[in-house]
């Protein structure tokens, strides 16, 4: 890595108490054009988040000194830096709680390098857009094309008719493309309702949307289910 690039390469703060994970993340990040700063505890992580102003935070939910959820809340009190939480399978409720508390995405242990880099890229892209980068008026992904300016949707060049709610759901997903959205977030953004009672209807709409946009709705390529958490519109 050249010195000149170092200043502009995104800084990733890794808050993780397991040395082997720290080691893997450091190696992986530094060999893929990221700068790395590590913290072994929530206390240290909070200090680094304030002092170093990182571009992305990777946060393990299983820290010994402070609940990861609580740490997410504290960081969100003053910072909008993207937070990606790391947790084990089977802890879906923790993930949902962290996401609803302001985390941007999550990784399930064990994860591979590809997955890590994909999440980081999406998080950085959304952070840049929030900072003022313009949104593309047309979203394209494989055979799927969404023309946001003209409110039209195409699959393999053929226009698809969506109900207003289906379209709204699709635009919310497009707006957050690549990022996971919890059931609660989708219900709030599409229907304006709070609470998770209406999840069944959300699932029905998602199924309808898949039948209109996906070639094999039972093996979706775009509209992915994040089991126990929510949905994600795949990007790369």
């Amino acid at each position, binding site marked *: 890595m050249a010195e000149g690039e170092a200043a502009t390469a995104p800084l990733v703060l890794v808050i993780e108490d397991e040395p082997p994970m720290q080691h893997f993340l450091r190696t992986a990040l530094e060999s893929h054009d990221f700068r790395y700063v590590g913290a072994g505890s929530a206390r240290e992580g909070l200090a680094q988040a304030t002092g170093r102003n990182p571009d992305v935070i990777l946060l393990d939910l299983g820290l010994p000194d402070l609940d990861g959820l609580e740490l997410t809340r504290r960081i969100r009190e003053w910072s909008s830096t993207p937070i990606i939480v790391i947790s084990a*399978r*089977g802890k*879906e409720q923790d993930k949902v709680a962290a996401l609803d508390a302001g985390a941007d995405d999550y990784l399930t242990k*064990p994860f591979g390098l590809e997955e890590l880099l994909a999440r980081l890229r999406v998080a950085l892209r959304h952070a840049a857009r929030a900072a003022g980068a313009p949104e593309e008026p047309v979203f394209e992904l494989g055979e799927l094309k969404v023309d946001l300016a003209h409110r039209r949707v195409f699959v393999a060049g053929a226009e*698809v*008719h*969506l*109900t*207003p*709610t*289906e379209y709204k759901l699709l635009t919310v997903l497009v707006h957050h493309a690549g990022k996971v959205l919890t059931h609660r977030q989708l219900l709030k953004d599409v*229907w304006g*309702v709070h609470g998770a*009672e*209406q*999840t*069944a*209807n959300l*699932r*029905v*709409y*998602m*199924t*309808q949307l*898949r039948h209109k946009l996906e070639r*094999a*709705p*039972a*093996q*979706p390529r775009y509209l*992915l*289910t994040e*089991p*126990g958490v929510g949905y994600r519109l795949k990007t790369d």
Partner: protein
Amino acid sequence: MPPQDDGRPDPEALLAQVRAEERRASRGRLRIFFGAAPGVGKTYAMLEAARARAREGVDVVVGVIETHGRPETAALLEGLPALPKRGLEYRGIALQEFDLDAALARRPGLLLVDELAHTNAPGSRHAKRWQDVEDLLDAGISVYTTLNVQHIESLNDVVARITGITVRETLPDAVFDQADELELADLAAEDLLARLRQGKVYVPEQAAAAVERFFRKGNLIALRELTLRRAAERVDAQMRGYMAEAGIHATWPAADRLLVCIGPNPDGARLVRAGKRMAAGLKCEWRVVYVERPGQAVSADERDALVANLQLAQSLGAQTAALAGQDAAEEILAYARDQNVTKIVVGKPTHPRWRDAIFGSLLDRLIRGSGDVDVYVITGDAEAPARRRAAAGQRSPLAEYAWAGLVLAVCTALSFGLIRIASVTDVAMVYLLGVGFVASRFGRGPSVAAAVGSIAFFDFFFVPPFYTFAVSDARYVLTFAVMLFIALVISALTFRLRAQAETARERERRTGALYAMTRDLAVTRGRSDVTAVASRHLAASFGAQVQILLPDEAGRVEIPVGVPPAFPLDEKERSVAQWVFERGRPAGAGTDTLPAALARYVPLAGSLGAVGVAGVRVADAKRFQDPGHEELLETFVGQAALALERVILAERAQQEQVEVQAERLRTALLSSLSHDMRTPLGAITGAASSLLADGGAGGALAEPARRDLLNSILTESQRMNRLIGNLLDMIRVETGALEVQRDWQPLEEVVGVALIRLDERLREHPVEVRLPPDLPLALLDGLLIEQVFVNLLENAVKYTPAGTPIEISASVRDGAIVVDVADRGPGFPPGEEGRIFEKFYRVSGAAGAGGVGLGLTICRGIVTAHGGRIWAENRAGGGAVFHFTLPLVGTPPSGMPVESDDG
């Protein structure tokens, strides 16, 4: 009674002795400093003994000591730590009381508590100080205390007779007898009088007038004798105890059992005390019974007296019982035979002899029916005044007499009609009919009045000379006598019959209520249901509010979760309930202990100890004092306790069953872990060490070989990850820790997630998904059902050759979604379809397929937890198919209307 045949100790007595020793080991020791009168130096002796113990290093604390301003006593108190007293206010007067809670919290080795017979100020936990001391002893705190002879319950009336002063503060004999040590503080009468003259004896101001009478030389000598005798009796009892322990049988105690029968009158107390003295003399167990005759009117005063007498008997160490029946003698004898009573004590009859002639003598019947039971008739039961009161208190409203008069008038009218066509004897029959009618409907008074009245009417109207009471023919006198006799007999018999019917009805009602509860409890499962059923029946049968409290893990009784309290239970009420639970004795309203409580608390005593507490609140606490009522309550509560214990034992058995299963699983998991986890680890270690030894690029390994090794590290790691996931799921399924979080979902979405998760591994198998478009939403845990699909698909991948298709389909059948996962592999060896769901089972002959054999067991666990069923079979045309069902329960919520397609 002769010694037992083989001369061996009675096993029951031995058991009692062992129990007593066990209790003694954990209990504190009680030493009573016992004296004949105030001023003999009990407190002084106690303090001296305590100082000696303190010098030995015992933690001696003063709980409460009255120095009464004596300097020598006060001097002895110096240097001993004292508990602060508890301030109490009662009717505007500030009172200082012994602080029981502080003592229990402080837990000294030895506590000094003066005046054992003291009555606590209202608002204290217990009514009496000796009850405080019981608590202290139970808590393992030893106590030194003082007591004067006049406070001993069974000597109370003797002392009153000697001194003419009735002492209100009394101590149950049982407490005195259970003291571990007794120390006599003795002083000759002359010396005591000398001390009194010197002003060294404290006399409370209000008692100053009584001093004259009390401190007479004669009195003091008598009291001193009484004291010495009582102390000697105790020494004698100890001696016998020692002999029994040491196996000396020469004077083995006679197994006498005494039964004292009392009636509803205030003087029964003397009979009870006499019984106690007799029982003490015979050194035997004793009981006190009261026979309640249904239909017999008992006034409130009599009831109170009866309750007081029964309570007195209990405090004197007797077991009490209320019997119910028409014939008191029969009931008493039946009870006596049932309880192996050898001696019956009754009071001397004081009613007039003619009553016995008419109604039969209880005493006579008792003696005749007693067989080998001795019957003692002693003074003490002054029955007559009470009987008169009973007659006065009997409900005989004027209306009933008026009815009797009306019936006679009707009879007379009928007879005037009848006399024209029939003889005068037939008229007599009409009147007898009337008497029978009155007796069957009204009380004894009206029926007797009707019997007498009918003779008068008959004579007046129908016996010549008419319209006078004179009788011309002497033969009519005999007619009158016969008529009167028959009328009285009819009225007595009819009345008794009716009373018996009422008894039967009442018994029937109680038995019915009890039976109803027992029946309901028998079919009830689960702790909360049992408590609910028991509460409901208790509430209905006693017209009370009933709250059952159950202990938590820490042994604190609490209202079961999710049950609204039947009546407000504040901290104080709970502490009463807690006390009851710990002691196994009833307390609260209507008892001696914590009578200020809102409700009465009764322990739910199962065979293994208290399983809970029932709080019973009635509008009028006096209702509890009805002896029959109390027994019935005990029976009800006993049944409830047994049912609850049964449930608790069942739960425990189930818990143990789960633990056995968990243990079996643990063993299987350990062996699986040691083998199956090491296999991928071996591959990873091997590959990584090869790469390291090769020394990076430019080493001996060709690039494809390097990639191959790296790939195997990755795939073996993933395999280990799956294995761990499986093991975790397995543990959840097997230990009952599987939490199913159901949610309405389309099955398609769940299938989709599973297929994407297995993307890589399914590359060599075309997967066909056929789900009907109108498949309803299913109520399921997405993560768990996804795991079922993943395991079934992995299973298919594992056992079928590359290139063969896998089909997933679903349909609705018999109120459930039936899902099929089918392959075109080799299928199952015959007979193994059922076994594949067993733990660690691998299909025979399918070697090298890898995995632990847990996948299908997990599937079964998850499907079962969803209320479904899973099974497998061979397919027509080759291959295997797995079916599982998901019951369709309820309907999905419909909050937001689902739009129809506008395209």
